[in-house]
């Protein structure tokens, strides 16, 4: 799948590394360019502001000056301290919220249009599986909602992909937390979405299961190569999975830094034990600490 030649992200903050040439290393854009070349094949947030009304005439500024482009086939991770607006960004992309100002475009259309075309895949921290439906039925749900006949081969292929062969008829309550999340991810993938949005899908899992799920998601992504945005607060997870890591600071939420991850794939223990990986972890963790203190 062809990547768009230029990828960039920026914020209104004056942090030098959000606009520096190192951010765009390997890309053809100039260091002072903060946007992709015009192309419909991308996901973009342009000068997005989001304000929430909290009652009695008071408002909270959740996001300011968010500019972010994601190229087709790219995996971007969004990290930041709690309450910095990561999930708000994802909800804007999913069409679950609207911007106060600015523009959100998914491949040239507004998010609602992509939903209507059944081209969005989402997995939330809460798996949102239908408790009365089996694994197969849950994964088939997007077909039914879209009014299409269920492609049983595709469902079987995804069940195999997420390692749940033999559990096709199991109900969600009969599965472990990790297995439920894998079902949710398979459901998000089943219609070959143009954009996959993952909102801390492994947030409720223990460290060991989470690590295993990360490597499984990396494997699945390498096979499907979907344009993906992952919201997480786990730096390791972001670095294992993403092509770029966007660091947000709060409040109000803004893009603080964008890190291009040049580590080779697959990023198994041979990569995660390298000094380069640890340097990146330390660097981004330090930024998160700073962002947390700022907020």
């Amino acid at each position, binding site marked *: 799948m062809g990547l768009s030649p230029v990828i960039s992200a920026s914020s209104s903050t004056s942090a030098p590394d959000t606009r520096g040439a190192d951010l765009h290393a390997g890309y053809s854009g100039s260091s002072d360019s903060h946007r992709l070349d015009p192309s419909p094949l991308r996901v973009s947030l342009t000068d997005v502001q989001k304000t929430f009304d909290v009652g009695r005439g008071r408002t909270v500024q959740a996001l300011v000056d968010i500019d972010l482009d994601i190229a087709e086939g790219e995996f971007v991770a969004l990290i930041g301290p709690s309450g910095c607006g990561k999930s708000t960004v994802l909800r804007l992309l*999913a069409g*679950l919220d609207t911007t106060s100002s600015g523009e959100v475009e998914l491949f040239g259309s507004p998010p609602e249009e992509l939903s209507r075309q*059944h081209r969005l895949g*989402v997995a939330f921290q809460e798996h*949102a599986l239908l408790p009365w439906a089996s694994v197969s039925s849950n994964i088939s749900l997007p077909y039914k909602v*879209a009014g299409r006949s269920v492609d049983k081969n595709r469902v079987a292929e995804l069940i195999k992909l997420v*390692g749940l062969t033999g*559990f096709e008829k*199991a109900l969600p309550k*009969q599965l472990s937390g990790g297995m439920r999340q894998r079902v949710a991810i398979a459901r998000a993938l089943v219609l070959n979405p143009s954009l996959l949005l993952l909102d801390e899908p492994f947030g409720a899992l223990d460290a060991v299961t989470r690590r295993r799920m990360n490597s499984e998601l990396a494997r699945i992504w390498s096979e499907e190569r979907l344009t993906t945005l992952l919201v997480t607060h786990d730096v390791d997870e972001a670095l294992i999975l993403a092509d770029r890591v966007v660091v947000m600071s709060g409040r109000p939420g803004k893009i603080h830094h964008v890190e291009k991850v040049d580590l080779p794939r697959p990023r198994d223990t041979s990569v995660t034990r390298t000094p380069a990986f640890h340097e990146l972890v330390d660097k981004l963790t330090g930024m998160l600490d700073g962002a947390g203190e700022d907020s």
Partner: protein
Amino acid sequence: MSAPTIPGTPAPHTATGGSRTHAGTTSGRVRSTLIWVGTNVLHLWPLALVVLVWDLWIVLNNYTALVAARPWDAFADILTHPGEYLYDTWFTMMMSVGGLLLGTVVGSLCAILVWWSAALSGIVTPAALIMRSVPISALIPIIARIFGYESDSTVFVCIVIICFFPSFVFVLSGLVSIPAAGRDLFTVLGAGKAQVLMRLGLLHSVPNLMISVRITAPIAVMAAILAEYLIGNHGLGEMFSYARSYQQWDRAWGTAVIATVLSVAIFLSARWCERKVTDRVT
């Protein structure tokens, strides 16, 4: 990757344990059945207390059989004349269960209308509240005027009116409490309101619906007997009224015993259904 086991689900390749396993399973089932029966019988202690208080009330007041029947006399009448009770018990049971089911359907439909549209909510909700606020004994003459005195339809309509409100409230509560994650998921999947209702809302509301059925079941029997007593041609209520008129106290109190047993049986059946259904959909 290791495949975690599903609790309560046999592993596909597990060898069976032969006759010992089978015997163990059977004895386990018998034991669990006995525990279930024992537990439910123990739960019936209030009925035993009622019988005891009933007998004490008669004995301590020195009431004769012309005033009230003792429990044993009522039981004896039931055991010696079961045929006299059979039809009316069957009639009251069918009216109660039918009214309960139709009332539940009507209440659920009203809840769906209210959930679907604010405009319909403005019409349906006040009507439902008025129906609930007026005592059924005050409504019966009006219903009888419409559907006819001494009509089984009138009895049935009374039961439906009594039964519809709990299901209306409970189903509506289920529909408005659809989890945010589920709602978000359906929005992202591009589902319309009808899809949200059919694929998420209704099934999410099933546990609430079953709670309403459980709490309404004994009330349905009470409504049936009251309506039969006041305007009915058949059923335990009419039987009680007839026996009382002719001072057949054994029969009258026997009718009350049967009505109590019927009410408890319908309640226990509804509770069993609630557990089974809720376990399946949650």
